[in-house]
């Protein structure tokens, strides 16, 4: 006498379970895709020029990105494109090219957990300038952020704005009339590759060690440098 191995109700439950797993998979996929989708990448105009040239990369760092991003209170980098500030942390740079970087920092001092990172590395000339004054190192407690592309050996500490400085910036993008520090330096991109960049200063307000939120999210204090 033959018996059905799986009764109808078991088959129904299995079908429901399988459908549920499939739906959950699709939802997780969509969520991950959403997380990985940041603002449009930025390519400096000179990136399409001939070899042997240099490009300019102009950035600002703000304590709160405001309406430029979903998390308005998160610290972020902005990039200037055609005279306008955008929130983009995915940059395309040409290979074997000098990149002249200017960072206008409007954020306060957070301090580095590792003072060693207070010295710049990987720069043309080995030094950077704070408001036009060349230096190789800053007091780690004065650091607001870092500009670091570890894969290229580049790290630059970004001097923070003093707490008692007048005309502090309230809303991003910050106007140049508000208190800021200007950091300038040059590095060479080297060979083509896909590199990550990050901030080493634990600057995420409200998170343990200051390393949550914007420090763990591409589009704020992390991004990619595509050297092409």
């Amino acid at each position: 006498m033959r018996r059905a191995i799986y009764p109808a109700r078991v088959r129904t439950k299995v079908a429901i379970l399988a459908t549920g797993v499939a739906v959950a998979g699709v939802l997780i996929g969509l969520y991950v895709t959403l997380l990985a989708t940041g603002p449009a990448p930025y390519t400096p105009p000179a990136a399409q020029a001939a070899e042997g040239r240099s490009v300019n990369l102009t950035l600002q760092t703000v304590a709160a990105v405001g309406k430029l991003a979903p998390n308005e209170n998160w610290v972020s980098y902005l990039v200037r494109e055609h005279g306008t500030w955008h929130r983009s942390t995915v940059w395309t740079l040409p290979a074997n090219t000098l990149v002249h970087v200017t960072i206008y920092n409007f954020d306060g001092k957070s301090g580095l957990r590792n003072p060693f990172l207070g010295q710049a590395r990987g720069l043309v000339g080995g030094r950077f300038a704070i408001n036009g004054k060349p230096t190789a190192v800053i007091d780690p407690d004065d650091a607001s952020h870092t500009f670091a592309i570890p894969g290229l050996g580049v790290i630059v500490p970004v001097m923070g704005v003093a707490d008692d400085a007048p005309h502090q910036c309230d809303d991003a993008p910050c106007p140049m009339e508000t208190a800021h520090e200007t950091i300038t330096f040059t590095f060479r991109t080297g060979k083509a590759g896909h590199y990550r960049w990050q901030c080493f200063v634990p600057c995420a307000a409200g998170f343990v060690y200051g390393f949550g939120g914007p420090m763990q999210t591409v589009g704020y204090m992390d991004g990619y440098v595509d050297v092409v």
Partner: protein
Amino acid sequence: MWSRRGHGWRIAALTTIGTAIVLPLVVFVLGPNMPPGKGTPVATSQVTDNTVLLVVMTPFTVFILVYLGYALTAFRAKPGEEGLDGAPLRGHFRSQVAWLASTTAAVLFLAIFGTTELLADNGAGGGAGPNPVTKPGGAPLPVQVIGQQWEFTYRYPTYGGVETATLVLPVGRKIAFHVTSLDAIHSFWAYELGVKADANPGVDNIAYVETKKISTFHVRCAELCGLWHGYMSDTGHVVSDADFASWIAARKRQFAPVMKYLPKYSSSYNPDPTFRAG
């Protein structure tokens, strides 16, 4: 077609034949190519350990695969019997005793073998905590490994506490890695050296190794530590004494500006703040 009394003997015979074929391949072909290579005595010892593990597990693996194949072949339902229950399951005392005895013996052997290897190799390249049970003779060169999101940096206390962003070691020296972290949990994995030690905040995790030849090795973080964990890698070098002396002197000059800001060398660091105000 299949006599019930012959199942056990057939499976035993097939297992023996299969083991006799596979075991030499494991010992002479697979074993020498096991990770992490033979970059250091500790790494070489790990290759041996991995080979021993494979040798011990080979007969069991062959048995399981033979049993699976045999069962699929001998015990499959005949056409027209797909919906019927099979024969009732009953215990087989001798088989159960044989299985328990053999696997227990294998596990106990590996426990004793593994413990012996750990002690013989002063931790076998793994982190042995702040007070290792066994230590190598002589005076190892201390190198502090500092994990942070997301980069390893290295301090050399016998060279003025200079900190560097790359790991360079002299050849023919015993090294004592002092592994710690400034934030999350990381794991310092110097693959070809056979060293892998957790980096915990506030903990001095010591791992020993002896460099035997000039080489290049990979350093990776082996503990999921945040957004850029996958990028937390580096390349280290074992160089001659002369090259090491030249390199460390150059690093002392390069990082002289930041030396005044570095904390005094310590087994671990607990920098402030641990929570940034919003």
